[in-house]
């Protein structure tokens, strides 16, 4: 499935801004499954997206639970807890 991947803040610094991704999910295509697959892509990914790290996910520009199923063409963003205001 085709996805647009985005990283922000400390994740952007570690992994770059993201970009187009053609992902072949092994099981159900959830945000959690994508995060787990991304961890296998490099040491930097494994570290930045490690299970114990506080990482938030947005799907199609809305905060989402990691169990959210992804649709083809979705925009998926990973970032640390927000600190605006």
């Amino acid at each position, binding site marked *: 499935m085709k996805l647009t991947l985005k990283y922000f*803040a400390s994740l952007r610094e570690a992994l770059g801004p993201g970009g187009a991704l053609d992902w072949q999910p092994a099981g159900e295509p959830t945000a959690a499954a994508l995060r787990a697959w991304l961890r296998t892509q490099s040491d930097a990914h494994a570290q930045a997206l490690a299970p114990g790290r506080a990482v938030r996910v947005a799907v199609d520009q809305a905060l989402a639970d990691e169990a959210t199923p992804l649709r083809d063409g979705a925009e998926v963003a990973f970032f640390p807890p*927000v600190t605006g205001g």
Partner: protein
Amino acid sequence: MAARVRIQEADFDVGAEFAALQGERTDVGAVASFVGCVRGHTKDDDISALTLEHYPGMTERAIEAMIVEAEARFAVQGALVIHRVGQLRPGERIVLVATMSPHRRDAFQACEFLMDYLKTHAPFWKKETTGQGERWVDARVEDDAALQRWGLESANAARGQGGESGGD
């Protein structure tokens, strides 16, 4: 009509924004506002600059949805949120939230609600520059507690995803 959610690098003029928000209306009884500024110190360090990053598109959508929620909860006649991004210096304004209601209580509450919501759900990230170098600011569990007072779940500062217990 000007957009009620604006993300910009430039500073804003609070008086001019109030005037534009109220316009020619004569049914407004209260305008409440909050202005957030850059603090020059933390507990341990002096801060020389604060750099704000955001998620273009999502930021505007998220805050717009927060205003819609505020309108459902309180008598809101108008609202404005301006949030700056880029590099700011101590003392500079970061954010303006202004709300307009027939009476003060709704204006105050809507303003505080929007600010509590924004702190925990709008995709902004702050990085501090100090004498020790640069570091990303940690989210605070107190900000989640502030939103929970309004009956909304919030686990932005939680360690893992979905509210796993404990922070550092």
